[in-house]
């Protein structure tokens, strides 16, 4: 008796879970970002961006006459939660594609799911491991670390620098950068004279910088995420180190430079052109798009546009293009993205192929320099 009652109860609860389809048939796209939690500096602009685009597209009549519905799930930057979020989007919401997750770790955790359920996943995380080796259903929009490294090394060559010191945070991003820096050093004739690391929560890097100061390094390359990037800048000036400092493309929000104050002047980083859109020549093919995105974002959210939001912009716009062209068939979307050439995004001009699921090369990067709390193209 009792158990049958329990069954009924269970059935009722479960029924409540099943979502009811709406009257209009929107295109459903999933988005998984670390909207809250420690990685929210990534997830928040990403969520804002996709929501902004959803609004804009629907205000203009949707795609092929059908509205676009972007279902955003918060991963809190946690792998277990991301697994659940992606399963929910795929099996319950039946989305035709997923943009995100924000972090490399969370992306790696859901790659097997995207592969198993055959849903295109366009990650907004940077790590090479996401697309190397190529996974059939997985793409990413942020430029590769290797290209950022190449850009830095080219700049170094230009500046006649061949001895560098590298610093990196012990995060997925930091480690990936460090690997690339070491791997590509020989190719560009760089000698790494110091290789220092620090924890993501470290509040003081003077010890590492003191070691670097004692070497013959001609430049420092730092690969990490907030807030460590700011600390490095401050500690560097505190120790009176005068050699140039390069940051990674994780330095993608102008407010990080501002937190460091005057000490940030002259710090360089390879970045998408978004941050220095005002200093771009007018004939740059990205300029109009970047200016619009930056202006829209900044008026709508009263916050600085960042390259991270840009990654989400590129990811969702790829899906939108695919929806326009082939509708919401998952396999067709995947094929469309894989064959997409000359797609102009905030991160660069994307040329995807069966062997390249990121579609960007080092030309996507511009070398930027901080000047009076703003980014300008480094000359």
């Amino acid at each position, binding site marked *: 008796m009792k158990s049958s009652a329990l069954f009924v109860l269970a059935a009722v609860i479960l029924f409540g879970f099943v979502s009811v389809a709406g009257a209009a048939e929107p295109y459903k796209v999933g988005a998984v970002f670390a909207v809250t939690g420690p990685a929210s500096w990534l997830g928040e602009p990403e969520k804002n961006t996709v929501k902004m685009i959803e609004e804009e597209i629907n205000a203009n009549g949707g795609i092929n006459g059908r509205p676009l519905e972007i279902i955003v799930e918060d991963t809190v930057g946690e792998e277990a939660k991301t697994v659940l979020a992606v399963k929910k989007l795929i099996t319950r919401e039946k989305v035709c594609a997923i943009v995100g997750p924000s972090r490399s770790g969370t992306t790696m955790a859901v790659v097997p799911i995207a592969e198993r359920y055959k849903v295109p996943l366009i990650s907004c995380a940077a790590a090479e491991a996401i697309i190397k080796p190529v996974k059939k259903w997985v793409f990413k929009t942020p430029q590769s670390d290797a290209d950022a490294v190449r850009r830095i090394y080219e700049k170094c060559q230009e500046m006649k620098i061949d001895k560098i010191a590298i610093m990196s945070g012990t995060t997925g991003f930091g480690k990936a950068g460090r690997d690339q820096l070491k791997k590509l050093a020989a190719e560009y004739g760089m000698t790494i004279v110091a290789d220092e690391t620090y924890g993501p929560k470290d509040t*003081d890097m003077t010890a590492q910088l003191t070691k670097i100061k004692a070497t013959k390094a001609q430049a420092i390359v730092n690969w990490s995420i907030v807030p460590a990037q700011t600390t490095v800048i401050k500690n560097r000036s*505190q120790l009176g180190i005068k050699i140039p400092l390069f940051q990674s493309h994780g330095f993608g929000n102008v407010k990080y430079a501002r937190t460091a104050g005057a000490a940030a002047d002259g710090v360089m980083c390879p970045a998408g052109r978004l941050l220095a859109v005002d200093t771009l020549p007018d004939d740059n093919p990205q300029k109009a798009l970047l200016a619009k995105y930056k202006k829209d974002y900044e008026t709508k959210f009263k916050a600085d546009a960042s390259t991270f939001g840009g990654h989400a912009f590129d990811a969702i716009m790829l899906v939108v293009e695919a929806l326009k062209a082939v509708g919401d068939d998952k396999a067709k979307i995947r094929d469309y993205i894989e064959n997409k050439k000359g797609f102009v995004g905030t991160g660069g001009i994307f040329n995807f192929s069966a062997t390249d699921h990121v579609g960007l090369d080092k030309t996507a990067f511009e070398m930027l320099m901080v000047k009076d709390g703003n980014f300008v193209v480094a000359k």
Partner: protein
Amino acid sequence: MTLSSQIVQFLFTGITIGSIYAMVGLGFNIIYNSTGIINFAQGEFVMLGGMVMVWLTTMVNLPMPLAFILTVAIVTVIGALFERLAIYPLKKPSVLILIIITLAGSIIFKGSAMLIWGKETHTLPHISGEEPIEFMGATILPQTLWIIAVLAVIVTLLAVFFNFTMVGKAMRACSVNPTAASLVGINVRRIVLLSFALSAGIGAVAGIVFTPMVLMEYDRGAMLALKGFCAAVLGGLGNGVGAVVAGLLIGILESFGAGFISSGYKDGIALLILLIVLIIKPSGLFGVSEASKLKEF
């Protein structure tokens, strides 16, 4: 940079960072002595100190000295309120419950700080400029001198307070034997309140002087608390001078460890020291072994 100037530099760095551990360790000891509680929210007091100061100086635009006093006052009141609202109402709580409560307190402070001031990293202007001073080939910031001075002032004031004032003596009596203290007419509950207020105040001062150096954001507390606790245990739990010496020692060891061994394991050094102390000499460097066995915490 020569080896000797490197060593001097590491020493400066270690003393600067060690001072904050010392201050957090002092805060732990004050509460521990009067209540036997290890306050997991101790690091959050430091964070709140930094954040409130940032808020008062940059958003409310108060002058520095006024903001300083106001910040310390606000955080002290927060500490006192925490004791009154979360610890005072409990009747004979077990140690387990107390740990969970201070842990919950730390999460609430952290969550609130995030909602109020956002997740960004905040900074404060240095008290007297950012021009590094050269010394034996190493550099030192004026702020470091301020930090050391503040630590010295705090230690002196505490020494005077505990040795020469009635309230301070009452607090010491409580730490030795609360039952006996209450028998001679000391209001133990008020002493507990006072100890929370006092260590919150010290935390706030630490937060204010450190934010210009190391920046501040909402989730700094846990690591600070852990390192401060390492200092408190290494110095002998309950021993104020011990905490200061141990704090500086840990700071210096960390700095040299990062400089000469491996920077990747830097944060592990203090924790490893803690585990080793717990295993070999739980009473710490300056503690009496009997005390640590008799006292619950």
